[in-house]
């Protein structure tokens, strides 16, 4: 596999990550969201492996396997179980309407392209052009958390953001040191468990996972 092909595959996978990010932004069904999240993890893991191969950074293989195990298998499984236990299969609502959300998402892509252009010009890595996509993925994850009102979708948005950060690390500097990555992975797993526990509590308290309900916590004056 030569450099050109690798660069092509890298950008194709980056495009797929972006596509899944947009897919999550507009997907209304929770199961669909989880599937998209799984796909995103898969593309990310593949991309990490490809970058690891091209840059001969062997610790990236470990990151790749870790991503696969955590984001493609463990987290989706946990979320599935959660949804099954909490009996939420309905369509999720969005706060802002979907076309507007999409347009904002597109604007964010343009913005991240603009913001990363100084780095792109300085960097010599073959992954430099995907940095914009990575930043965009982070921003879209945040946008998703803003525009959704369901607690589970917010968590998925959060996880997608983390995907973006991981992707950014891979494309900007060929990944973080392995220790950091392991730590982050562990954090993610623990976070997922804590979220699960919180979901149950929120669910039993409010009988719903709609985060709008949280507004009721505020004391009336």
């Amino acid at each position, binding site marked *: 596999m030569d450099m050109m092909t690798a660069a092509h595959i890298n*950008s194709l996978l980056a*495009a*797929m990550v972006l596509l899944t990010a*947009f897919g999550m932004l*507009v997907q209304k069904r929770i199961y669909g969201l989880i599937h998209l999240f799984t796909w995103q993890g898969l593309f990310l893991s593949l991309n990490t492996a490809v970058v690891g191969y091209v840059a001969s950074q062997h610790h990236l293989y470990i990151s790749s396997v870790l991503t696969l195990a955590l984001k493609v298998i463990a987290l989706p499984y946990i979320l599935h179980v959660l949804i099954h236990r909490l009996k939420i299969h309905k369509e999720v609502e969005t706060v802002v309407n*979907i076309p507007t959300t999409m347009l904002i998402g*597109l604007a964010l*892509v343009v913005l991240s*392209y603009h913001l990363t252009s100084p780095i792109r010009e300085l960097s010599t890595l073959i992954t430099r*052009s995907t940095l914009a996509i990575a930043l965009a993925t982070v921003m879209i994850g945040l946008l998703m958390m803003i525009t959704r009102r369901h607690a589970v979708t917010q968590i998925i948005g959060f996880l997608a953001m983390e995907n973006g950060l991981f992707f950014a690390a891979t494309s900007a500097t060929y990944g973080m040191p392995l220790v950091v990555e392991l730590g982050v992975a562990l954090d993610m797993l623990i976070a997922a468990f804590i979220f699960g526990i919180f979901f149950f509590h929120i669910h039993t308290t409010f009988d719903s996972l709609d985060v709008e309900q949280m507004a009721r916590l505020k004391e009336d004056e």
Partner: protein
Amino acid sequence: MSFYYLFVELLQVVLLLALAPVFLGWVRMVKCWAQGRTSAGLFQPYRDLAKLFAKEVLLAENASWIFRFTPYLVFGTAVLAGAIVPIITVDLPLSPSADVIVIIGLFAIARFFTALAGMDIGTAFGGMGSSREMMIASLAEPAMLMAIFTVSLANKSTSLSQIVQVICTTGASIKPSLAFALLAFVLIALAETGRVPVDNPATHLELTMIHEAMILEYSGRHLALIEWASAMKLFLFVSIGIAAFAPWGIALANEMLSLPLALLFLVLKFAVAGVGIVLIETGLAKMRIFRVPEFLGAAFMLATLGMLSFFILD
């Protein structure tokens, strides 16, 4: 040489006229198979056309000349577009007269007049069809142009023949921008040719029809022309898709001898495209009319992502 040009031009138009109903028949046939029904055969659209041409025309009392003129215009624009889109070869003498923007414009003028014809009689159905068709068209057109522009930017041309020539001579590479553009193009082509999930070409149920509502009052040869033209439109959208995204096999400039091969490729690609359409149509349900903007919005998003990734990644 000039005889050759004339020959391929005529050959293309004849192929378009002849194959468009067959392709429609093929789509219907595969659909029947997919749904476990017995099909009416590959040539049923021909029989339908022949029947319609033989019938007399019933014209509503207050139909104006627009109503009678529209079928001819719709047919004319489809034939002209077929003379320009490279279906089997890029050596078309008419191809410089219109690039892909003009071809979209040709479909637009056909739609403009069809919508007027729908309003001409003054029934509620006609108006409803026109209104919905124009709504869908106005959302589909920007997405269509964005998808096409992505291809044009990648190949530095808006002329379809030139795009085919460039893609075939520079060799294949998977570009994310083109993948996005192709996805968007498929979604929009479904909307523009009135297929499921946007419109259902087989329905005459009052509230769900769009294109059929506009042409509800047509009969006889007028209806035959419109039906034939819409078969050609489907055929042409597939051809445009092939030319812009997978042109391999189309005879390039000054390659007379590869015409038979081009023909073979054409048949193969259309067979595959027909199966693809059927898979989409049987896999999806027809949408409510106000879900269509979301569908087209997604197409627009894909097309725009294609254009963005052309600049970011390519």
